[in-house]
């Protein structure tokens, strides 16, 4: 996020794009409500009625998979109605002429035909957005999990640049990132192209620094991305082993059938986790790790804030903290890796990453949290980026971007007439490895899980609320409970991705964004069918659930 989560409360306008705070981050959702109470205008872009839509001043209910067309139309209005901040753009931004050409055909009327959003609502949204003193954009997976994702992120950033909403408090653009510490894993270099602190593996100087510190030779080649692995294993036979930590790809990656095939073909699969999960069923070796209450460390929040957390209880049973397991594996493989505690690891990392250098344990304890960049121990962190409107481009100027809209890579047709988007629900976290083992949360929302569908579609298909139904795509078929709701529009369905029985990733497609290789979780074609024998279906669900629990040794 360019700005901080607490600043959300002080914005005059929030443009929430493909982000459902109440279900993904209830703590951030509280800030959105506080902003509203303090008088902020709320504009929400979402195909479904979410809690934010409920309190919004303006709702743009776009069709799934049409983000870029809408963002271009927003740019078109800013340009054609001369709403953009000419002085700011003149001083700090480049590429205006190309941008104008690229968005020229995306008039609100042109976009209405694609997105289904009323042309006048697009105009009104942009007049409000450009007119607000301090406006902030929040976006989520409704932007990133499409085959056209990076383009939309850059398109949204262009709206921010055009209106000069950067470089000061209570403005900016916030990708409110998925899970706890997903920001931290990126900060620490678990991406295929960077070392810790976003230092490129292709940068020879950075590479030499890490080689010297670790006493090894490092590759300057960019690694594989997660979603490239299935192809590399099944078609090219290039990847032979998989070491999976705190991740359940059979549950969380698209096209689960293919993921299982990949795991079974690999020569070695190691899973390091706190409980059994679907991926661990395919592992050759399972390394039991401690959970968050049983060890210490540092988390990064979505707004770049480092926070220390400490051990609350002693671990039980045969398990170790992740860092100790890694050290022992490395040592056994011939590279002696030894640390006294997590602080020693953290200090080594700080020494190698200039933008994290000042965030020592001592300073973190004193300040509670530190947002990077924090170059020295005297520095108190950076709540918002781009002070003085200097950007991290070669000439320091912000770059405008627009390109043509591309539809999702799978389309609905006669055989699979409905769209499926995968979403979150408040009671379960990620793949439910933790929350599925908490009895109270499990009971509030239990297997086989739900398919949200519109009242109109339910009527047409003769489906009653809470009935078991069958939902299928070109890749698979699962059973789940119908959740018939006015919040969903005709033609669309939604499922949360943590269920073992109603596992929506048996259905999702493995199309990805060309740059990030993030899967198109938000759009695939499905069909929904009524099940006549409800008693038989209920029994089938109970049997399947019992079988899985037995396989995993779950007694919760």
């Amino acid at each position, binding site marked *: 996020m360019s700005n901080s989560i607490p600043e959300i409360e002080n914005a005059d306008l929030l443009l929430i794009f493909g982000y459902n705070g*109440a279900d993904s981050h209830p703590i951030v959702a509280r800030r959105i409500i506080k902003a509203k109470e303090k008088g902020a205008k709320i504009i929400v872009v979402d195909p479904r009625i979410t809690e934010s839509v409920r309190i919004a001043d303006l709702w743009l209910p776009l069709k799934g998979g049409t983000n870029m067309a809408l963002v271009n139309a927003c740019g078109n209005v800013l340009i054609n109605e001369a709403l953009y901040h000419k002085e700011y753009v003149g001083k700090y931004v480049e590429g205006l002429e190309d941008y104008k050409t690229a968005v020229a055909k995306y008039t609100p009327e042109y976009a209405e035909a694609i997105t289904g959003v009323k042309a006048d609502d697009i105009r009104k949204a942009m007049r409000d957005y450009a007119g607000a003193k301090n406006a902030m954009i929040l976006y989520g997976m409704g932007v990133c999990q499409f085959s056209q994702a990076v383009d939309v992120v850059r398109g949204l950033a262009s709206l921010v640049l055009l209106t000069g909403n950067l470089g000061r408090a209570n403005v900016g653009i916030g990708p409110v990132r998925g899970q706890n510490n997903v920001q931290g894993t990126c900060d620490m270099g678990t991406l295929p192209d960077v070392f810790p602190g976003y230092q490129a593996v292709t940068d020879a100087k950075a590479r030499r620094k890490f080689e010297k510190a670790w006493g090894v030779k490092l590759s300057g080649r960019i690694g594989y991305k997660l979603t490239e692995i299935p192809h590399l294993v099944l078609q090219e036979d290039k990847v032979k082993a998989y070491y999976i930590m705190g991740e359940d790809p059979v549950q969380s990656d698209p096209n689960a059938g293919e993921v299982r095939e990949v795991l079974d073909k690999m020569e070695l699969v190691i899973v390091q986790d706190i409980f059994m999960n679907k991926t661990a069923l395919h592992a050759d070796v399972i390394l039991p790790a401690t959970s968050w209450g049983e060890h210490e460390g540092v988390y990064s929040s979505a707004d770049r804030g480092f926070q220390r957390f400490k051990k609350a209880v002693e671990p039980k049973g045969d398990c170790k903290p992740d860092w100790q397991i890694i050290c022992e594996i490395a040592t056994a493989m011939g590279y002696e890796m030894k640390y006294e505690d997590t602080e020693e690891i953290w200090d080594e990392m700080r020494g190698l990453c200039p933008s994290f250098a000042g965030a020592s344990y001592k300073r973190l304890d004193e300040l509670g949290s530190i947002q990077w960049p924090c170059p020295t121990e005297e520095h108190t962190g950076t709540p918002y980026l781009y002070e003085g409107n200097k950007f991290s481009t070669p000439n320091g100027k912000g770059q405008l971007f627009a390109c043509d809209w591309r539809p999702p890579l799978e389309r609905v047709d006669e055989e699979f007439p409905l769209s499926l988007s995968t979403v979150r629900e*408040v009671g379960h976290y990620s793949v439910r490895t933790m929350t599925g083992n908490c*009895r*109270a*949360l499990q009971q509030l929302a239990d297997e086989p899980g739900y398919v949200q569908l519109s009242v109109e579609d339910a009527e047409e298909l003769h489906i009653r609320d809470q009935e078991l139904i069958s939902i299928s795509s070109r890749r698979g078929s699962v059973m789940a409970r119908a959740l018939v*709701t*006015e*919040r969903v529009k005709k033609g669309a369905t939604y499922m949360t991705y943590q269920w073992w029985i109603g596992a929506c990733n048996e259905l999702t497609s493995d199309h990805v964004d060309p740059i990030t290789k993030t899967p198109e979780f938000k759009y695939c074609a499905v069909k929904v069918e009524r099940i006549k024998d409800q008693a038989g279906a209920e029994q089938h669900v109970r049997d399947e659930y019992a079988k899985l629990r037995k396989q995993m040794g779950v007694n919760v």
Partner: protein
Amino acid sequence: MSGTLNSFVVANPNQCIGCKVCEIVCFAVHNKNNQVAMSVGTIAAPVIPRLYLVRGETFTMPIQCRHCEDAPCANSCRIGAIKQEDKRIVIDENDCIGCKTCLLACPFGAIDLLPQFKDGEAVIQANLKEESEFGLEEKVKTIAYKCDLCQDHGEPACVTACPQQALTLVIPAEEKKRRNRQAAVNLLSALN
């Protein structure tokens, strides 16, 4: 005589984010004898809340008992298991026969009928058995549950637990007095 009116809990839908913390804490404080000790994650009994989060096109909020002065549930109870007690309407769960009349009588849908639990175990009916393919089997006792304003807990747990402070315990006499005073202030400012 607003001083004798029953209190009740009500939610502000503009503040509710639908997180269900109220449901969990409601269950937790009412099931101390059902092994809900350290953490609700370790419970054996099913989660039975006495307020219900509802979601619709335009609303998200928990709905619970209004503790009506002329309570239709109590008026309809065939065996007198629902009574007025210290400014609240309560169900005697041991007397309840599960006839469901109160569920139908309540205009808010604030009453639900669910299995009874004691010490983490389902309570079994004394005589009634259920016919099954294995012969006659024991049947779990089902009783009516509703909000009792946390009578054994002190103040309503949902009000204190809500992270949004979306729930309020309304004490009608105080609320009336507050509004009278506010009206006076408003009139005064209109005059000046």
